[in-house]
């Protein structure tokens, strides 16, 4: 991870513990050979007050750490490094380093403003507008891009950021939701919470993180009996961006690659079956689903126990999923 900060809050680059789930499952998707990579820019904007500055820096660090652990190459800008020119340079570097097949993620944390015309991301020095940021991103050729703008008034950035192939997530639905947001904090929490991983593939997608955060923000305002001053918004498909893992990936033993291929086939067959569910009776659907899942379960076990002495396989003792 590339870290740039002039605040004296030196980041060591050491990752925090991401997940200590009891069951370290076998990670299939991430082990598939792929030339494409994920490049991510995380920016902690100007806090204004010490509490905000610390919170933004922590949230940015957490976001960066999780993304890196999930395989992304991350640039983190904080403090004086997060000036307009620093952001512009970082984006230019990403544009230069990535191709069409790569994924690019830009994640902004901090305060934003909206003057009824332009959204501005608050950083030391002149604030870049949404139009500036969008313009700097123009040279990026990656077909799959994600912008997470976790600031007040960020809803106003939706339109300037909109582009084919780019998913845009904002903490507010419009520029007029001007209060400081809690979205970024809950987003950081989501990355560390195994429950965010709803499909249990041991990866947390931006879509899963968004759903988790959206609910957490709503619960926060309801629980504290405050009028909700932020309503997050997502345009596009965020499910394609993996931004955290609930367990570290394990390398694939070449001897079980054929099993992994079969797992992919079964997974695809399950997807097809789910899509066709309306055409089947409940009994027929679940019977077929069970057949596929039984084979999947058997394969998973074979892959996991390959080369290991026979150990009885049981779920976690306390009944808690990882």
């Amino acid at each position, binding site marked *: 991870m590339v870290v740039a900060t002039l605040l004296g809050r030196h980041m060591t680059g050491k990752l925090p513990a991401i997940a200590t789930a009891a*069951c370290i499952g076998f990670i299939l998707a991430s082990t598939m050979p792929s030339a494409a990579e994920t490049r991510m820019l995380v920016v902690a904007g100007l806090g204004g007050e010490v509490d905000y500055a610390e919170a933004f820096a922590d949230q940015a660090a957490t976001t960066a750490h999780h993304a890196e652990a999930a395989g992304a190459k991350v640039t983190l800008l904080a403090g004086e490094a997060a000036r307009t020119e620093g952001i512009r340079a970082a984006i230019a570097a990403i544009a230069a380093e990535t191709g069409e097949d790569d994924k690019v993620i830009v994640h902004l944390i901090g305060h934003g403003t909206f003057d009824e015309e332009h959204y501005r991301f608050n950083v030391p020095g002149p604030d870049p507008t949404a139009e500036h940021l969008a313009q700097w991103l123009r040279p990026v050729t990656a077909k799959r891009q994600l912008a997470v703008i976790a600031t007040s008034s960020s809803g106003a950035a939706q339109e300037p950021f909109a582009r084919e192939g780019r998913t845009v997530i904002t903490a507010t639905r419009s520029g007029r939701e001007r209060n400081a947001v809690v979205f970024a904090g809950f987003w950081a929490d989501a990355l560390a919470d195994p429950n965010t991983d*709803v499909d249990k593939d041991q990866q947390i997608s931006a879509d899963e993180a968004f759903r988790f955060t959206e*609910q957490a923000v709503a619960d926060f305002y309801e629980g504290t*009996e405050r009028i909700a001053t932020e309503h997050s918004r997502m345009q596009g498909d965020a499910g394609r961006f993996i931004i955290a893992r609930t367990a570290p990936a394990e390398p694939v033993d070449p001897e079980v690659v054929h099993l992994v291929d079969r797992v992919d086939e079964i997974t695809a067959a399950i997807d097809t079956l789910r899509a066709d569910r309306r055409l089947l009776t409940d009994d027929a659907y679940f019977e077929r689903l069970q057949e596929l899942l039984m084979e999947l379960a058997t394969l998973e*076990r074979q892959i996991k126990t390959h080369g290991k002495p026979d150990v009885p396989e049981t779920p976690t003792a306390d009944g808690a999923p990882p």
Partner: protein
Amino acid sequence: MIRTFPVLPRHRYPKRGACLLTFALATACLVDAATPEDCWTLAFSDRDSAQDCFIELLEHEYPAVVAEAAWGLDDVQAANRAFRLAVGREPDNADIKVRWGELFLATYQVADAQTLFGEALEIDPTHAGAKLGLARVAFDRFEAEARRLVQGVLDAEPDHTGALLLLARLALEVGDHERARQALEGPVVSANTAHRLEAMGLMAAMDHVADRVPSPWEDKVLAIAPGYGAMFETIAHFYVIGHRYREAVIQLERALEVDPTLWSAHAALGTNLLRINRFEDAKEILARAHEGDPYNAQVVNTLRLLDSLDAWQVLREDDLILRAHPAEVDALKPYVGRLVGDAVRVVGERYGFVPDYPVVVEIYPRHQDFAVRTSGLPGIGALGVAFGDVVAMDSPSARSIDEGFDWASALWHEVAHVITLGATDNRVSRWFTEGVSVLEEWTTGPSRFQGANPAGRRRAPTRMVVAAYRDDRLLPVATLDEGFIRPTYQQQVMVSYVQSGLLCEYIAETHGHEALQRILAAYRAGKSTIQAVEESLEIPHETLDAGFKDYLDERFDGLDTDAFGKALEEASSAADEGDWATVATAAGRAVASFPTPDPPSPYPLLAEAQMRLGDPVEATQTLLTYWRAGGRSTSVLSRLIELLDQSERDDEALDVRRSLTLVAPLDPANRTRLGDALLAREKPREALDEYLAALSLDPHDSAGAHYRIARAYHRLNDTENARRHVLLALEIAPRFSDALSLLLEINR
């Protein structure tokens, strides 16, 4: 269209004719064949002729007379316009303002009425009608001010019939029949038909609440005014005050028999049908009430509520009917079922009455909806209400435990009412039913006091009660009901709740618990509070009061609310400074001064200080004391669970987790964690309930929720359900490793 007469709200007959009110009207009386008063009087015996009479007055040159005529013809809009015109012409005429105010009062626009009565008093500070108008406003709002205002009128005019009638109502409300009877002596023989009928109606009501039925006054009233449904409304009102809703319904039905267009009776009937769980009938009647009187906001609100209830689920079991919002019903059902079952059994056995009918529980996620159900009832603590066998209350989603709403305790409290109301056929006094419910919350309820407490072995009272006691503001038992119905100071209702609980505690401790049963039996036999207390305890009620005072002296001895406040403030300031040694000392003093688990409780601060000072064992003990004393803050209990988990005190951790989940049952994470703890301790049946509840709350991780359910079913050897849920989990998350393993295990 509403047909309302210029009278007390909900009592349709005038106390005095309009032509007597003003010089202008009196002049009109001399000129015209009929006066408004003639028309109003005629309405008692011959409604059609009264209509003709009013029609003739519509062309009158004086707008105040026209207003009376329009009012008599139910055209309240025209009456309002005419009164406005009349006041415009005679801005200094207090009489017209009072009559206009009475029109507003009759059409539920209380604030406007109050303004007009106030303006009339500015013109004439001695105006009895204006004072009485304000008294009626206060009366309808169950304000103690009503008494002072009525007395003010009577001080100036001891024979003022309207004031005497209101005085009688105030006395009847608190069961003071002697005072009511004295007040009615004059009005009941009044030459004014309206006053006489109202007085006779009150006499009939007095007979009814004393079980002297049929009352001879009923026939006398109907002989004078065959359509005088207001009498039955009056009787019903006093039945409602005494929680006797079924009897109220019968009287309101009688009101409609004699006057099918008495819309206020329709409204009251609909409201009371709801209180006895006759929802469909209530809906029909309220729709008719609204058709006849679209100005009644309470009817509109109730109809809206009923419309929304159409989508609700009603779960029926032998001993429980639960009506709850679809999003909450599955999560609440296991707890409501258990709480109601336990409360009926435990409290029922303690008071010798276990109902053989189901308890109906309605749980409202919106506090406004609960408020609609309790509208028109005095002294509701805004937590819950029991209408005999029907309990209505806020859901924990309406108000959380951290806002001071312990819904589980509130439900226990309400079920205790079901017991005391059932045991007495709803004849129990307010203070006693509340006292028993509070006592049962403290001693048998889900957040009851357990274990040792530095100040004694009983739950610490609230500070406001100690303060009220020391300020000599607690009421004697004979008038304790007044503290609920017409409080004279802020918080008196809450003080009266706790005082009643303490009084029941005192009676049980000094005369044995069976004394409470004897008092219940006396109420069932129709005794008054003084009779019930004196016969059951075999002491004069003054002796009870004196003994109670001594008891409180001892009970509150050592409780120092001032020292508590100062110590807590010092602890809070020190915490802000990070001076944890001072926090520990000051919070410790606060605990010693007033060991309360209620917010602001000093225990959490003390525990935090102990943690910061490196003593987690002591901190754990402090928080356990807090929990055992009934403290239920979710954040504090979560912290305690953490500490207990760290020290592997699994049994206590599970107990505290149960408390936490009980008070915050709509948090799927709480339910899930309790389920995990239960499953780990080989309690799959209980775990399953928690997991199913969590799933019903639409958790973010629904695959995980299904998986957990599958695990619990699997432990219960319910293979079919286990398979179904593991497939549902895997349908969402096909690569869910643990679920795949479980599927293999199930199909092994």
